[in-house]
């Protein structure tokens, strides 16, 4: 009784300590998130704090006490990214349109620079003058020196500055130079320094400044840019860019991400540059997943049948056969990649050929299936031999008494039963291989692909690796389109898996 009481006290103390600790940590994080302008994250953390305190100090929330940590993690790192992907799929989120409109505006203005007629550049020293950022400029050709701040230009007497052997001014009275390590990160490097009113000096690097003038002007009332040189007007085209009114091909860089609603989804079906590769990739994905499951299952079952009898050495066979499955798959895939190497690989050496496995579409596909067979047949061997033992022996005996030969028994009794037991696993395996990113990415990288034509889809690319290429590849990166394909894949895989779940009737126990 007493010990129970003490334990209760200790448990209460631990609970309070844990809740207090997590509240303190999350509150700190929430505050700093708020301070940095990440209001959504700050809000999320704050709600989490409230939830934790409510859940663990209220008596009414018993199931939630068990669920809360899991729910928080799922919400933060699984659900939110999924929702974010959904949102991205309705944006024109791609190379050139990565940033928000506000950022794009300031970036366009910062980039809208026109050099002066001679493209003049001067040697400079970055520093401070009368506690404002300033540069010390040496116009060597005219033998003139001046200090320039964002607001004004102060001419210096050439005799009063300290110059080095190249006639570059190093210091002047009232001017403090910055340490060279601080310059690139300092605000002083990003300022525009006064030159003659229209033109100004921009810090190009540590000791060079160039003369520019502003070439575009933003008119906030109309939300347009006006060229100060030609007078052309650039208007928001509602698709993330300012486009020249007189010339549709002339738009300002960078653009911004703008809602494009269903455009990405429509492109999947209407834009042939997107649709055609997508269809061929989809076909290969289905072929790949089907062949993989079939070959893995066939070899696994064959082994299970062969070793279903207590023959000599069965244990040794078994231990060796599960090795491919026990190896970390990342390593195995990379090893196979090395073995398929054209010049130095073991496979060509044994075959005595010079097959360029990963340069030829057919060979690359064969290699992918073969490697996946190696990776997966032990799994099906293990589950099939388990299921074989689950088949009641009475059934087999009854069939034998009825005069069926072993082949008939296998085809008419064992196999149908086995398929019934294993069909949820076969479907799960299909769904898994449908998205077997690691294999494709690490073995062939999706290739071979014709990169000269700007082709993104390779011969062995499955949907998921193709999507990865679109989102993160070397060519144009299009997160919006990739997200739209992701959503499509989600629906495909979800329907395959739901079909499998229904088959295995996992959900039955909750109804």
């Amino acid at each position: 009784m007493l010990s129970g009481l003490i334990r209760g006290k200790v448990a209460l103390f631990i609970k309070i300590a844990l809740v207090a600790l997590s509240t303190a940590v999350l509150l700190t994080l929430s505050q700093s998130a708020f301070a940095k302008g990440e209001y959504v994250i700050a809000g999320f953390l704050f709600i989490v704090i409230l939830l934790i305190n409510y859940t663990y100090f209220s008596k009414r929330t018993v199931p939630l006490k068990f669920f809360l940590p899991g729910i928080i993690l799922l919400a933060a790192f699984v659900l939110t990214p999924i929702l974010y992907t959904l949102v991205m799929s309705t944006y024109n989120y791609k190379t050139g349109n990565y940033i928000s409109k506000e950022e794009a505006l300031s970036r366009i203005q910062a980039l809208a620079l026109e050099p002066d007629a001679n493209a003049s550049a001067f040697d400079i020293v970055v520093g401070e003058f009368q506690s404002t950022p300033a540069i010390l400029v040496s116009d060597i050709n005219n033998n003139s020196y001046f200090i320039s701040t964002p607001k004004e230009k102060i001419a210096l007497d050439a005799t009063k500055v300290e110059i080095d052997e190249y006639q570059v001014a190093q210091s002047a009275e009232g001017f403090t130079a910055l340490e060279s390590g601080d310059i690139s990160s300092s605000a002083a490097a990003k300022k525009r320094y006064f030159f003659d009113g229209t033109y100004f000096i921009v810090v190009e690097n540590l000791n060079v400044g160039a003369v520019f003038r502003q070439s575009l002007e933003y008119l906030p009332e109309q939300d347009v840019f006006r060229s100060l040189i030609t007078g052309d007007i650039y208007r928001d085209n509602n698709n993330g860019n300012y486009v020249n009114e007189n010339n549709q091909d002339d738009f300002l860089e960078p653009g911004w991400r703008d809602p494009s609603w269903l455009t990405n989804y429509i492109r999947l079906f209407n834009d042939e540059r997107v649709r055609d590769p997508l269809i061929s990739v989809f076909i290969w994905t289905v072929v790949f997943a089907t062949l993989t499951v079939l070959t893995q299952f066939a070899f696994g079952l064959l082994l299970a049948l062969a070793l279903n009898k207590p023959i000599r050495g069965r244990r040794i066979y078994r231990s060796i056969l599960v090795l491919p499955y026990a190896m970390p798959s990342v390593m195995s895939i990379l090893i196979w990649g090395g073995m398929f190497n054209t010049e130095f690989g073991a496979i060509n050496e044994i075959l005595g050929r010079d097959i360029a496995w990963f340069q030829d579409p057919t060979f690359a596909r064969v290699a992918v299936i073969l490697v996946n067979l190696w990776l997966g047949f032990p799994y099906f061997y293990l589950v099939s031999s388990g299921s074989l033992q689950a088949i009641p022996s009475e059934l087999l005996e009854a069939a034998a008494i009825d005069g069926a030969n072993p082949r008939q028994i296998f085809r008419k009794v064992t196999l149908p039963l086995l398929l019934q037991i294993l069909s949820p696993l076969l479907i799960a395996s299909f769904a898994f291989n449908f998205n077997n990113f690691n294999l494709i990415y690490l073995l062939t990288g999706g290739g071979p692909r014709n990169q000269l034509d700007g082709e993104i889809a390779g011969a062995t690319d499955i949907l998921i690796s193709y999507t990865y290429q679109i989102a993160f590849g070397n060519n144009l990166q299009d997160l919006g389109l990739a997200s739209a394909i992701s959503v499509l894949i989600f629906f495909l895989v979800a329907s395959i898996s739901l079909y499998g779940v229904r088959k295995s009737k996992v959900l039955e126990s909750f109804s």
Partner: protein
Amino acid sequence: MTRWLKENLWRHITGVVMCLFALFPLYLVVLSSFNESGSLQVSSFYPKDISFANYQVLFNDERIPYLTWMKNSLIISGFVAMTSVIIGAASAFAFSRLKFQGKRFGIQLLLLIQMFPAILALSALYVIMERVYKFAPGLGIGTQAGLILVYLGGAMGVNIWLLKGFVDSIPAELDEAAKIDGASAMQTYWQIFVPLAAPVLAVVSLLSFIGTFNEFILARLFLIEVETRTVAVGLQQFIGGQFSENWGPFAAGSIIASIPIVVIFLSLQKYIVSGLTAGSVKG
């Protein structure tokens, strides 16, 4: 004798052929780890002169912090395995044993979000963790702590699902008896369920360990500094170009890295298979 041949010969032939197929790449790796030439070749099928140079490179070359990678992998996978099972077990218990509104919906939602391919949420994860980095540099992109958090989130779905399968198979009589004796849900959980389920929790955490150890894409995206990488990422970069195709040390490295996983796997074979049939495929 002929009868034996007829009945058992094909079994042995199948077994031997498949064993050779299974062993071939593994044997080759072992062979090239002792060979200095640096490619996955079969100059001979038995080791001619055994050299430990590749192993020495792993432990002595300053450009290859192999031991640090190994340590990173073990720490990250260990932490994720333990924590995700502690958190997941509570949820699995509640799903399996408690009655509450929206239980069916919760399970279906769990199944559904598990079907969203994690790799596709990669860009979103990246953007989120980049933002986290802005206010908490210790947790955001580029940090192991951030990676661990993301792993924990990802492990939730699978682990709750797996654990639920196991928990369902533990007879409910015991905790029902405890309930009748007046134990609260918390007491039942800590004093009846956790001790009973301890072996199962251990198995699931080892599975989780293997899964995390094997994870590659997120680790590569997150861990930018060479010193923070996991062994899978480190070794991949190793033959990926940074040091040109350098198979000898890679072979040695992957053998050492695989040993703990293979040992865990073989010793837990029975449980792992039953866990896998409960509804998931190893990644």
